[in-house]
């Protein structure tokens, strides 16, 4: 029933809030990236919940199904298609971020954001 969508809504809000919290307050860069990926998961969950229909069926037209019955009972498939793309994009973004972290770790020897991603504009000038 509508209770399902309410539960999903709370879950996705919780995931987004966890992500935003970790973006500000967590110092370790790998954990920060894990936390930020939860934002994307929460958003995906919300979009899937849009297409959900209480008491409906999976939106695949099986042989032998009545078309008009199917049209009024199947879940709305458009959001599902969007989320498929979005999951893959999120994973590739995460992979690129982790690759950059691996390169930067070799230079700094630490995973702390305060050291690794601090202000660089002062450091690069007027040596030599």
């Amino acid at each position, binding site marked *: 029933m509508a209770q399902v969508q309410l539960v999903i809504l709370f879950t996705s809000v919780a995931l987004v809030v966890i992500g*935003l919290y970790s*973006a*500000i307050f967590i110092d370790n860069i790998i954990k920060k990236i894990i936390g930020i990926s939860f934002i994307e998961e929460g958003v995906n969950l919300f979009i899937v919940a849009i297409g959900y229909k209480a008491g409906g069926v999976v939106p695949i037209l099986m042989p032998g199904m009545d078309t008009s019955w199917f049209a009024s009972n199947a879940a709305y498939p458009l959001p599902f298609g969007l989320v498929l793309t979005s999951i893959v994009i999120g994973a590739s973004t995460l992979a690129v971020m982790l690759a950059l972290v691996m390169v930067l770790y070799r230079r700094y020897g630490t995973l702390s*954001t*305060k050291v690794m*991603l*601090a*202000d*660089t*504009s*002062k450091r690069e*000038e*007027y040596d030599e």
Partner: protein
Amino acid sequence: MKIYDQIFNVVKQFRKLFSPGPVTNADVSGSLTAEIFLIVSLVLSAILLRHVNVLLAGIVTLILAILLISNIPLIPKFKIEQEDSLEKMLFYAIVTLGLLATFMYWGGNLV
């Protein structure tokens, strides 16, 4: 004489802004221009509030002008808040997101 001393102190504080390295006269004049530009443009954009309420615009403009002028040099403070560290960027981004969402959800119809 007092305002002259104040401006002189401002120029002294710019040295920290450009350290390490020398401070050239072009840089100092640029920073002074930025200082004046910042004050004038912020006060000028506060006048835009007159489309909401004339009295409010007058009060806000006066308070903003007094605050900004009594707090010079502004540019060093401004620059520290807008440096390249990820912490500050993330902080301001999320604060903006929170303000934007809160304002739009409850106050989007007021304008």
